[in-house]
């Protein structure tokens, strides 16, 4: 399971970085989105990968912490998702404004000279 997740994060990050370095604004925003997926998965797996372990204590007699997953990374990833969602939306607006004002979707606001 670890290797699958590690590969997924790696592929997402690599594609994200590659897209981020592309000259078109839409590619940049897709790159940022992919990067944010990768980062969210990364935060999530920092709480260790476990199956069948709830993140909340059930009942008064269940006191062995080994039976539970760490809830903190899950809370962190929730916050991170919300924040990256909002900033992506904002970036989308800026992207559209830049397209409208400069007439091109190049990140520098002008087409490179041939």
């Amino acid at each position, binding site marked *: 399971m670890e290797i699958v997740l590690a590969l997924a994060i790696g592929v997402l990050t690599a594609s994200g970085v590659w897209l981020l370095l592309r000259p078109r604004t839409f590619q940049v925003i897709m790159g940022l989105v992919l*990067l944010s997926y990768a980062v969210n998965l990364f935060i999530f797996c920092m709480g260790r990968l476990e199956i069948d372990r709830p993140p909340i204590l059930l009942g008064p007699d269940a006191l062995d912490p080994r039976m539970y997953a760490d809830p903190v990374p899950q809370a*962190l990833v929730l916050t991170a998702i919300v924040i990256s969602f909002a900033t992506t939306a904002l970036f989308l607006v800026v992207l559209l404004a830049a397209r409208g004002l400069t007439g091109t979707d190049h990140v520098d606001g002008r087409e490179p000279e041939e």
Partner: protein
Amino acid sequence: MTALLRHLPVIPILVPLVVGAVELLLPEARRGLRVALPVASVLAQIAAALMLLYLTTDSMPDMWTEGVGVYSIGSWVAPFGIVLVVDRLAALMVTLTSLVALPALVYSLANWDRVGPGFHSMFQFLLMGLNGAFLTGDLFNLFVFFEVLLAASYGLMLHGSGPARVKAGLHYISVNLTASFLFLIGVAMIYGMTGTLNMADLAQRLTLLDADDRALFEAGAAILGVAFLVKAGVWPLSFWLPSAYSAASAPVAAIFAIMTKVGVYAVLRVGTLLASGDQQISFIDVGLFYGGAATITYGVIGMLAAQQLGRLVAYSVIASSGLLLMALGLQNEALTAPVLFYLVSSALAASAFFMLNGMTDRTRMIQMAASADVAPLPDVTYMGFGVKEPADPLSSEDEVGVAIPAAMAFLGLAFVSCVLLVAGLPPLSGFIGKFAMLYAVVQSAAEGALGWHDWALIAAVLVVGFAAVIALTRIGLRLFWSVTGRTTPRLRVIEAGPVGFLILLCLGLTVGAGPVMTYLDSAARSLHAPDVYIRVVHTAAALEAAP
């Protein structure tokens, strides 16, 4: 009284949050209230910040001792809950923020706050993020406050619209979003290795890590450091900074002047806390030294090459940021207090300079619009936001304040003061900051010989000042002496006043350098003895309900 005072640390975060939210609901027509609320909020923040400053001097020993105060949010004690920690450095930074915010806000009332919607809300949220970042004692909470201040700054950066701003804003946003991802990766790695996000708890658990975890932890800390350094504008992560700062509207650039200092603050805060466990993180310090040196080189070259005052000031912000990082990288504890003094002085100077640039720029714009057939900026912005243009923008501008006489004389005088501050020449506070840095280097080397690192710092301090004098003199000549037929600009008191206020603050910093330095010395001492910070955070009891 003390029961109320215990809630003081949360005031600089709560007040701008509430005021910013209320501003969203107020209709545009209620101009009086829309202006009065933010000003009252900033005044309240100044009062709260000064009170925090007073409390950290141990003047009220029954409240806080040893200059550190802890506020447990929701009465959850550390390390389980999030705590706000006020030590001398945090109190100093909060005070600096509020003192820069007041003039920037007043300046914006002249006309900038009306060229687009939501200026006051975003301004308040920016202040909330800044204050929160300075006060928090939790790494993830630091991330959240960074995001709050960044989200507000994205909006403010674009305030006024126009192609130049949107283009610079696009770069600014993408760089800072990427930096936020690095921040998250760093925080997640640190949590994965130590199981805590509370900074004080983190410093304690550091010593318990075994070698493998230790390596991963250091990688996480380094990634976190890169995220901070993007904010601080270190080379090669600062190419976005000059165009962003010079494209932003004047009051926004004035408050942005403090944003690079947030990065420096975070490096200083986390760096000193993590260094408490042992001294193995010194590779970060070495990186800071060389990074700072490269940043200074970049800033100086940029300053000499800049053709507009706005870009020049932005490069001087980079150079001063580089100087701070280079001095911190020297690992000389005697340097910390002078570095803090220089940080305060350079933030005030850059803020004043950006507003001054706004005034000289605006006159040029009107001139251009009159001579060439170019539409003045506000037309574009009203259209861009779909806001209905006021019937006669010029007449509404005139109502706002009284025009001050001898406008060019004031501009010239303010320009000279700003040059003195940025270049670090006597008699203003920039000189004292730089002199104190040089003195500390030479003094601490009195026991042994000066190493080449020390010589490099001395050279850097002098070169930055020299380059600033050359570049600013050239621009000043062009601005004030060589232009013929320039129309004398109409200045209003609420535009000139803020610049004067900041310069007077720097003058006050010069006159009161003794007491300020004493306070900064104690701040530096407590930074380099983080055991007190850690102990106070761990032993802080939950807030009891007020009787």
